[in-house]
């Protein structure tokens, strides 16, 4: 069954049809929440709540991009979770300085077990740097760059998800990329050499 028929069946009350949609989108939803919140448990809670909310309000989906509709629910839940965490912080929210020697205790970005140790280490370092730089962004900038650059949404879908005009999406994305560029430039030396060589080779 294609996505449209699955959505239609869900709107008729078919839970199994909706669970197939969940399997298709759960990784994207979870990674968006994880990048946004930088906390596994909070990201899992936000993702689960988002799918429950999506099923309960499936009749409000009137067509268009289901991905954008679903990710809007996820980003709203992430904002709510972020506010809840700020009220009762259990861990510091500020991103670590990319140039610092300290390492993140939680190895969130473990490479696949099939990777060679060297490749795994390269990937881990890269993921750590990326996550630190994303976490250093303000929430609104972070949401836009995650939706466009990480999840591949276009400007129109992003404006629907973030509920801001397209001009605001443009502006926030440009400023977020500038800041990320500065952040990655400062940690450029920390990036794996193979990655840097690959990048230089492409240019």
């Amino acid at each position, binding site marked *: 069954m294609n996505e449209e028929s699955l959505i239609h069946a869900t709107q008729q009350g078919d*839970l199994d049809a909706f669970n197939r949609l*969940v399997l298709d989108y759960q990784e994207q939803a*979870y990674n968006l929440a994880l990048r946004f919140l930088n906390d596994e448990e909070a990201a*899992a809670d936000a993702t689960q709540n988002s799918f429950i909310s999506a099923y309960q309000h499936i009749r409000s989906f009137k067509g268009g991009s289901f991905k954008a509709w679903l990710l809007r629910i996820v980003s709203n839940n992430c904002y709510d979770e972020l506010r809840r965490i700020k009220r009762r912080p259990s861990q510091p929210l500020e991103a670590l300085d990319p140039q610092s020697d300290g390492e993140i205790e939680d190895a969130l*970005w473990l490479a696949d077990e099939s990777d060679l140790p060297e490749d795994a280490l390269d990937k881990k370092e890269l993921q750590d740097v990326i996550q630190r730089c994303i976490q250093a962004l303000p929430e609104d900038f972070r949401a836009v760059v995650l939706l466009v650059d990480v999840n591949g949404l276009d400007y129109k879908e992003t404006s629907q998800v973030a509920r801001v005009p397209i001009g605001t999406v*443009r502006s926030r994305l440009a400023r977020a990329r*500038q800041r990320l560029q500065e952040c*990655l430039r400062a940690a450029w030396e920390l990036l794996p050499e193979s990655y840097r060589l690959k*990048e230089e080779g492409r240019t």
Partner: protein
Amino acid sequence: MMSTPELNTREWLLLSAYLDGELSPREKNQVEELLQANPASQQALEGLRRTCQVLQHAHARRVPRNFTLDESMLRRPWLPSFSRVLSYSSALAGLLLVIVLALDFSSSSRMLTASDLALAPQAESFSVAPSDKQAAGDAPLIINWGSPAPQMGIYGKGSGGRGEDMAYGLGGGGAAPAYGIGGGAPEVALMPEEGLVEPQILPEESAPEAFIPEESLGEVLDEPLEESLAIVPEPEAQAEEPALEEAPEAQLKAPSAAALGDSPILGVRSESEQGTVSFHGQPASLPDDELSALPWCTLELILAALAGLGALSAWALRKRQAR
């Protein structure tokens, strides 16, 4: 890595959107002209491209578990949480409080309007009723507040004088209901026809001169002041006092007890109306108003207490649940 080129905000914005293909044809032409004219813009565009590639290559974390749903997750609690119940109840109490306050205020306004209307005819009853003789061209009534014979009809503030003439109007006659302003006072003439004290121009030798410096007198007046125009109580006022006392007494007749009961009256009625008391309207029923206000106040207090306690309890409960 190359340093960040110096571009303005708009140029950065255009370059970023150019990377995503989100520019209008006109804007696209502008960017391409900029890239040809300014090498720094080319450097900036390359930097943005690398940044986007790094983000796109960001590793996607595998989900820790499947987030598929089952019926138990979708079952909504039959009863809402207690904190929510408290929140709704406090909001409802607050809303009811506003409604009760509005009703109370509007009813108070109506009562005030009704009491104003009740006052209006009473105010008219205090107007001076000129006698026939006065209408025939006699000197106008003059109220001499300084006279020692306040019985000429002035029962009110400023009467002064002897004890039996004490004011029964505003502030007076404490035991009796107020029939002064606001009360059901009869129409009265403020001054009787006889015993009128007219101002007189005194002759020069008896009247004290006004203290006016001679120099200013010469400046102000062409002729020296010959007469003092000071109006002073005439010397015969005291001699006529007995007459004055008699005249009002002759005119005034104590209102019949049957008409007034034990209540004092204001003013003195004209001869034709002596012995009759007319009431215009009824005094405001203050006791009833005070009694009717009590349930409103109690209700308002109860609702305010409910709203405040409910809100506090909901807040405390949510705080505890959040922990």
